[in-house]
């Protein structure tokens, strides 16, 4: 039987990339059909197939690493580079929305009454739920670091407790933010204030949900003994992503919620 003479991972042929591309086609064209022809079927097929592809692709990565041992230090280095590049691209994504916010708020037009917040907008009190949300995310940053140290010290019970607490804090943030959205005295249709507020905080909220899901998967893997004190990159990637989500919120809080009120 031939063995490879290098430390890279030559993956088995996989259908997920092409199915993923097809799922993206169905989701985007499904959005079009829903918007213009009021039929949601294509969109639903797109969302379900996207979810199925993500599930199976990531399941296969766990199989290749934890069960088949393909993630050598060389492979892990590549994954680290990949995650860093991905998070950097996300940072640029948010930069765009912050740019839009400052474009409109630094020099408010006469249509807005020459002021920020515009005439007629009652902004949310930054010392109310938004401050609680800030505390929640900062605390979750502490708990995820606690979980990391517990994993490295082979302390199973504490690692599970700390990571579970992190996930709960993440869901608590989402629940509070959903309530804030429902109770807000302004909507996305309320001029450029509404647009910048809900698009920026909305995409952030989506990233909180993604990050919480990633951490939840890590929690399940932690309980199933997938991580070792020396090798737990999936968890580290989730923790990096979570810290990124936290930092974006801090910027959102300081600029849109506080300075912008």
């Amino acid at each position, binding site marked *: 039987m031939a063995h490879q003479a290098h430390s890279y991972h030559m993956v088995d042929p996989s259908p997920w990339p092409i199915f993923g591309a097809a799922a993206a086609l169905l989701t985007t064209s499904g959005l079009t059909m829903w918007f213009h022809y009021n039929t949601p079927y294509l969109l639903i097929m797109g969302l379900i*197939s996207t979810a199925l592809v993500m599930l199976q692709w990531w399941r296969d990565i766990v199989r290749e690493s934890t069960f088949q041992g393909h993630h050598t230090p060389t492979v892990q280095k590549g994954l680290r580079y990949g995650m860093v590049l991905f998070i950097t691209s996300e940072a640029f994504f948010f930069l765009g929305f912050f740019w839009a916010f400052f474009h409109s708020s630094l020099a408010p037009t006469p249509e807005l009454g020459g002021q920020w917040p515009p005439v007629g907008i009652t902004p949310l009190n930054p010392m109310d739920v938004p401050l609680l949300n800030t505390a929640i995310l900062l605390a979750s940053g502490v708990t995820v670091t606690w979980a990391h140290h517990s994993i490295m010290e082979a302390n199973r019970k504490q690692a599970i407790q700390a990571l579970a607490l992190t996930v709960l804090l993440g869901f608590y943030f989402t629940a509070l933010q959903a309530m804030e959205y429902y109770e807000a005295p302004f909507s996305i249709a309320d001029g450029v204030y509404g647009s910048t507020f809900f698009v920026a905080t909305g995409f952030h909220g989506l990233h909180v949900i993604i990050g919480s899901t990633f951490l939840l998967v890590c929690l399940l893997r932690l309980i199933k003994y997938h991580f070792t004190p020396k090798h737990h990159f999936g968890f580290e990637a989730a923790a990096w992503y979570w810290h990124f989500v936290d930092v974006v919120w801090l910027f959102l809080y300081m600029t849109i919620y506080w300075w912008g009120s």
Partner: protein
Amino acid sequence: QGLKPLVPTESPAPIFGTSKPPSEAEAFLGKNKVPDLQKVFQRSDGLPVHLKRGVPDRLLYRTTMALTIGGTIYCLVALYIASQPKNK
């Protein structure tokens, strides 16, 4: 013969340290099944990793394929219909 002691001389049953330490089968929140799974996924059966577990993998794979390929055909049909000019 001798006087029967009023107080029993054997030491009383121990109170501390009597619970047995968690054995391998009772570890916190389930036991480690990773070595068994490693055996399953390292079988030389020529199967690619996405089908390695047999029936459940095949089911999910076929469902995903049906949705994506069927959906792509539906998408092309819908786009063809949508591109027809509206007759006034």
